[in-house]
């Protein structure tokens, strides 16, 4: 059975190569291979449901063993990765147009990213982890730049920030290697337990920079809005739903696999009974939640809006994980799963709209509910889940995070978490309103709903938002069991929610949804009894005496929250990106004005450098290796 771990890791890589070769034969061979292998991986992942396997050695490097392992927490992320990848491969078949670009390597990269992420969650040592981390960064970079001209610049930004993060991680790993001579997780944990506080803090901060770049926690988020919005439609859900979760997973491993709350509490002061390092992470996450929400509200581009929303939602994940209590960490991990589901759904649904209309500019769209009713319904479920409204899944995980913060009396963070959720109402309504409600522009009168191949992944995710919302116990089964391995006290839960005593109040989502359904049916029946309504066209509308015609643009869509923008004007002016750009400019000036004097591009100058260096070197040798 243990050999399967290696097979599972290899499956997507083999699938990727075969898809590439198969594409040379015929495109349907490529599709078949990609679908088969991503499905195989998903099946193989289910073998490990709630299984813990420690230490399958698959090689060694620098005298450190390379290890694969799995536990329920890894499985949670494994499930996110494999399930989402499978759905995205199916969606890609419908969405990616063949004639525009060659797609053989697209499917290869797609499966390679999947394989790399599987490697990350199965890694049992830091070398394996880092190796797959780098493969993930590079392959996802190639996926991003499939999106056309603008995406190249976005991808460039992404890969540069990823490299900065990777270097920072690399330094931390090197530090650990020098100290521990082994990078297996267990050895790292023992080393850290006997290290000074300074060493621990440096290690966590350096690793954390790598994770925070990937998870796009402010102030390291600047790559995300560009990359996630410019990437092709099927890649955005992979980036937003899955890839940024790797940062959260890494953070979880470092905080609770290597360290523990008790250990961290022993070596550093505590605030609100939280070690200060965790407390700072909580604040960064909370700031991400609020600021990204404000920015999302002001966006005019559907995918950019969702990208900022991802920064905000990953903030909840990190905030939950950094609380350090059983309830909070479980909430954070559950939110990682939920966010993958609803953000994947939203990006795919918006991708479907782009597929049919060719634009993602919110003010160009409108009224599509009559043309694309299935996509509308799915997107509606997605935004309800995102806004954290019961009975869908986003509500339960956010509720857990709120309760955990309330239990710890971390009121200011809690206020920020609440505000981010209320703000989410604003931007999700803007999204659904501008695309599907309001007046239908004349040019979209012949738009149809997307083909079945694109509907299926969207609806699988839409149904999942309901399932995990009403039955949070399904996910809690895995999360609670996994957290026990990391030394957390198990929290009490039922299939439908949480009994009294787990949090500060009880929750039973099935009752909420059942009563809502009954109330809905009752109101509906009353509605049907009354006399039937007559359907009128959208031009038969109140316009203060004017006649609405197709030529008149009678829609409120651009600058939807303009008046709110005036309130937060001073916040919107703050730009982290400007600080970074300042440094970029400084580097350019340094290069152009100073380095240009040295690297002139002139052959004679270079020759004279060589002569000078050779002379000095010769002089050094003549003087017996001593210059001074």
């Amino acid at each position, binding site marked *: 059975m243990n050999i399967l771990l290696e097979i599972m890791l290899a499956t997507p890589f083999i699938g990727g190569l075969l898809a590439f070769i198969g594409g040379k034969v015929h495109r349907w061979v490529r599709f078949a291979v990609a679908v088969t292998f991503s499905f195989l991986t998903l099946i193989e992942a289910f073998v490990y449901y709630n299984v813990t396997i420690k230490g399958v050695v698959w090689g060694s490097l620098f005298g450190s063993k390379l290890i694969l392992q799995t536990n329920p927490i890894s499985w949670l992320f494994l499930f996110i990765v494999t399930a989402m990848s499978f759905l995205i491969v199916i969606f890609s078949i419908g969405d990616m147009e063949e004639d525009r670009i060659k797609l053989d390597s697209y499917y290869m990269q797609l499966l390679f990213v999947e394989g790399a992420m599987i490697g990350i969650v199965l890694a049992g040592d830091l070398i394996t982890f880092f190796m797959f981390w780098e493969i993930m960064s590079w392959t996802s970079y190639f996926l991003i730049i499939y999106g056309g001209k603008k995406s190249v610049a976005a991808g460039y930004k992404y890969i540069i920030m990823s490299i900065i993060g990777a270097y920072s991680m690399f330094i931390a790993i090197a530090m650990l290697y020098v100290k521990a001579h082994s990078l297996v997780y267990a050895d790292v944990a023992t080393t850290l337990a006997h290290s000074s506080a300074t060493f621990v803090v440096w290690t966590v901060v350096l690793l954390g920079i790598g994770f925070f770049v990937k998870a796009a926690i402010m102030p390291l988020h600047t790559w995300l809005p560009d990359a996630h919005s410019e990437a092709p439609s099927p890649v955005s859900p992979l980036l937003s739903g899955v890839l940024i979760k790797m940062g959260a997973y890494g953070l979880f491993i470092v905080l609770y696999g290597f360290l523990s709350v008790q250990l961290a509490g022993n070596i550093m002061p505590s605030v609100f009974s939280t070690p200060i390092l965790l407390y700072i992470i909580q604040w960064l996450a909370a700031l991400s939640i609020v600021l990204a929400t404000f920015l999302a509200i002001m966006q005019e581009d559907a995918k950019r809006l969702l990208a900022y929303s991802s920064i905000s939602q990953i903030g909840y994940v990190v905030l939950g994980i950094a609380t350090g209590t059983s309830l909070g960490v479980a909430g954070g991990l559950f939110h990682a799963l939920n966010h993958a589901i609803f953000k994947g759904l939203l990006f795919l649904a918006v991708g479907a709209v782009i597929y049919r209309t060719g634009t993602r500019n919110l003010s160009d769209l409108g009224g599509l509910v009559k043309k694309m009713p299935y996509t509308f319904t799915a997107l509606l479920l997605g935004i309800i889940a995102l806004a954290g409204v019961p009975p869908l899944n986003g509500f339960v995980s956010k509720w857990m995070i709120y309760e955990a913060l309330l239990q710890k009396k971390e009121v200011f963070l809690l206020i920020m978490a609440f505000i981010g959720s209320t703000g989410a109402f604003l931007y999700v309504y803007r999204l659904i309103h501008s695309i599907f409600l*309001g007046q239908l522009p004349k040019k979209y009168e012949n738009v149809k709903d997307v083909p079945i191949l694109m509907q299926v992944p969207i609806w699988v995710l839409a149904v999942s938002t309901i399932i995990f919302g009403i039955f949070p116990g399904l996910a809690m089964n895995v999360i609670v069991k996994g957290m026990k391995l990391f030394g957390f006290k198990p929290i009490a839960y039922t299939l439908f929610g949480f009994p009294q005593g787990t949090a500060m*109040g009880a*929750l039973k989502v099935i009752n*909420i949804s059942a009563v809502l359904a009954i109330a809905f049916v009752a109101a509906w029946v009353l509605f049907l009894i009354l006399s039937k309504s007559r359907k009128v066209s959208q031009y038969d509308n109140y*316009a203060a005496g004017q006649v609405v015609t197709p030529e008149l643009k009678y829609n*409120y869509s651009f600058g939807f929250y303009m008046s709110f923008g005036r*309130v937060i004007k001073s916040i919107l002016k703050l730009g982290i990106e400007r600080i970074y750009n300042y440094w970029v400019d400084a580097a350019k000036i340094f290069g152009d004005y100073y380095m240009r004097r040295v690297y002139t591009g002139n052959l004679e100058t270079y020759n004279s450098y060589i002569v000078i260096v050779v002379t000095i070197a010769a002089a050094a040798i003549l003087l017996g290796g001593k210059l001074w």
Partner: protein
Amino acid sequence: MVKMILIAIVAPLLAFAIGLSFMMIKRKFVARIQRRYGPTIIQPIFDIMKLLLKEDNISHGIIFSLGPIIAIAGSILSVFFIPIAGLNMLTGSGDLIALLYIMAIGSLGMALGAGDSANPNASIGISRALTLMFGYDLPLVIIVISVALQYHTTDLSAIVAAQANGHWALWSLPLSAIVGFVVTYGALGEHPFDIITAPHEVATGPMVEYGGKHLGFLMINHAFHLYVEIALFVDLFLGGASNIFIFYIKMFAVFFIMMMFDEVLPRFKIDDAVRFFWKWPTVVALISLIIVLVK
């Protein structure tokens, strides 16, 4: 079981009746302030009946029609989570924090329906409603946190029980109670916060295209909305009540004070309303929260 079904039927009807009675009283009260005689006291019932029984109803689409239905379903759901006169109903299935989000279901339905009416006035109305909601939500969550910390629970029935025998949160958390009143007032969208409907600007906003039975449903929903917001305030700060009459008297007292403000104030600009909520109510609520934390 029979008792449960009975409660399930009676509770929403009672909530509706209470809300409707407030609507009736208000029509008359406003008229007298404006030195008019005003309509007969049961005028709102006539209005709702007339609208529901209209023969010609227009609809802009399925979502347009579903909007008012979802709104009412959401409001009825909220009714079950607010303990009234010793009845806890569903408070064991969702606490105060869950209730905050359950109350949003109805607004969401309303927003969707209005959006589908394909009228910019409706869209502007929803944009204003959501902006206003963002405004009053900040002080609202702060006072909710204060109350939860004061009583060490988020279970509404436990909060009500802890306030028995006159130990109202109004006395122990006076500042939060004041903010709670302002927030409830804002959530009801009365002057000066009537920017959502603002008939002179956006032609009643979200309701602009609604008529007939749809509008009748929205009026029913308004009655529920009045009940839910005020009953929540009574439960949080005035200690609920042991029987329905005292509960009604407390609710009426709150509503009466609100009516007095309603008719004498002009209308805020949208951004000024948000700024208002983020300034004084927030500061006062934070002071109250810090007092609870330090205590």
